[in-house]
């Protein structure tokens, strides 16, 4: 399967130079560029207006270029929402969740996929259902539980909840990967007299590292992007994440168009940087998830 895949890809690559570009090819290219520009249009307009004064916006509207370049909106969102703090909150929550959820996924999958613990099919099925569950179906009991535990309005509450939710997906994916882990390697490790823990650390972990790193990147991005549960749990200004800070700003009716544009632009900068750094891992992950 994978052999024919690479063969197909190689053939495709060698073919690309042999063709002449017809008029139809150029039309297709132009059409797709126009479509991509339509998708990009909101972000372009947003960027232009993020550096405009409100007076300029009122006079010339959103579609003209700024007459004077101003960082006012960016600076004002940065200081009034304490942007570095919101960034730190988003970062710490997403990072801890990604690490903890990966650890849990590996431990679960080791027991399910390689340990073949009794009832493993049923456990995986339950984990799959946990994945599909809408967060609303857990929201109010969780809210009550964490309030009673004194963890309401803390980053820790969000970290605990999303570690479990993300690890459900991780376990679902990784346990099937471990279910097909090469038997010969496991047998060789057993002959060497390795303990279960040693097999996990020295054999299984290194070999499945590519899948694990993809899971890590995905858990990080998903947690960063979460909205509903953080909104219901994080009321205090000092614990909120970037999407929550932007939503609070948008909710104020007096909000000026340019301020909101600057704030939105600043909010997406970390995501864009992250995308550029982890582009390869992300595209691997999206496709790995699809094949599964």
């Amino acid at each position, binding site marked *: 399967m994978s052999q024919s895949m690479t063969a*197909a*890809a190689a*053939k*495709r690559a060698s073919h*690309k130079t042999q063709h002449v570009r017809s008029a*139809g*090819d150029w039309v297709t*290219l132009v059409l*797709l560029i126009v*479509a991509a520009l339509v998708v990009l249009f*909101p*972000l372009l*307009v947003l960027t232009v207006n993020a550096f405009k004064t409100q007076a300029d916006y009122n006079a010339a*509207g*959103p579609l003209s270029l700024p007459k004077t370049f101003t960082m006012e909106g960016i600076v004002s969102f940065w200081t009034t929402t304490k942007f570095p703090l919101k960034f730190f909150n988003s970062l710490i929550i997403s990072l801890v969740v990604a690490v903890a959820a990966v650890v*849990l*996924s590996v431990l*679960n999958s*080791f*027991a399910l996929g*390689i*340990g*073949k*613990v*009794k009832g493993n099919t049923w456990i995986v099925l*339950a984990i799959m259902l*946990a994945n*599909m*569950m*809408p967060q*609303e*179906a*857990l*929201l*109010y*009991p*969780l*809210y009550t539980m964490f309030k009673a535990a004194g963890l309401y309005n803390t980053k820790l509450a969000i970290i*605990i909840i999303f570690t*479990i*939710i993300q*690890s*459900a997906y991780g376990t679902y994916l990784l346990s099937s990967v471990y279910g097909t882990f090469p038997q010969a390697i496991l047998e060789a490790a*057993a*002959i060497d007299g390795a303990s*279960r823990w040693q097999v996990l650390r020295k054999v299984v972990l290194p070999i499945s590292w590519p899948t694990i790193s993809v899971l890590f990147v995905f858990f990080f*991005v998903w947690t960063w992007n*979460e*909205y*509903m549960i953080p909104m219901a749990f994080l009321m205090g200004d000092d614990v909120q994440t970037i*999407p929550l800070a932007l*939503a609070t700003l*948008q909710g104020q009716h007096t909000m000026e*168009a340019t301020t*909101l*544009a600057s704030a*939105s632009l600043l909010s*997406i900068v970390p995501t864009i940087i992250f995308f550029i750094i982890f*582009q390869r891992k992300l595209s691997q992950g999206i496709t790995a998830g*699809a094949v599964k």
Partner: protein
Amino acid sequence: MAGNRKHAHHESLSRLPGNKSSRFVPYLIPGILGLTIIVIVPFVWNIYLSFTRWRGVGPVRFIGLQNWQRLFKDSTFWISFLNSFWIIVAIVVIPTILGLFISSLLTDVIQKKFGGKTASFLRALFYLPQLLPVAVAAIIMGWIFRPEDGAVNALLEQIGLGSLTHNWLGSPDSALPVLMFILVWIQLGYPIVIFMSGLQRVDPELYEAASLDGANWWQKFRVVTLPSIIPELLVVILTATIGALKTFAPVYLLTKGGPGTATTVPSYYSYNQFFQVQQVGYGAAISTALTAVIIVFSVVFTIIQKRVEKNLV
């Protein structure tokens, strides 16, 4: 080994020779404990709450099936699922169809004739909205559709269609279609990326053969492209439909379900019952019903998926 396994009925073996599978149980304890506390207990509790009347504080009163009886007679509840149908059109149907065409054009025309770099650059542009936190993406599009001075209205003014300017998300006639448009914008990149990776698997010789037979682009699309990426197609339909049924942030941030019930969806409706009108029991009934719909859909779809994939092999 196999013989061994047959006889050892009471002791199942792991895939690691010499280790009984029961010895792996400790590895499972943290995960199962977490899953029990964070998912299973709250889920069962939520089902229980759907049989009670509770305002979030004070005593929880058991009222049997009253919430459920009310649910079946509640027109807002049915409207919310009807709106979910339109959300599915916006998140599943439209992006999947557009995604099929765009990904096959990107793979078979752009990648072949203009190089892989051009194709992946265009793919990245389409994928950009998928990458943003959905709340941020929604707020940006809300900004574009601002009622007074938003970019869409300004654009209409400039091209002489000023009479078409509109309070896009605030009018009952346009709120749902505009919300759908925004969701298509957010979603489109997902099927494109997945279909493109599926298309890398297709042998170019199939296209060559079809071309030699005089097939046009549409015929090649139907005979070669579409059948090759059926596994990806099914995955996209399943995951996107579940996602569509769960849609919350765009509705909450852009329309609050309104005007009236024009854009109310089940997840927003239950949130509203939980936190805005403090009808916790009723909110629990709505979210339990939504969960049931999602699970039934997923199970049925997965059975169909397995059957289709078996026929492909």
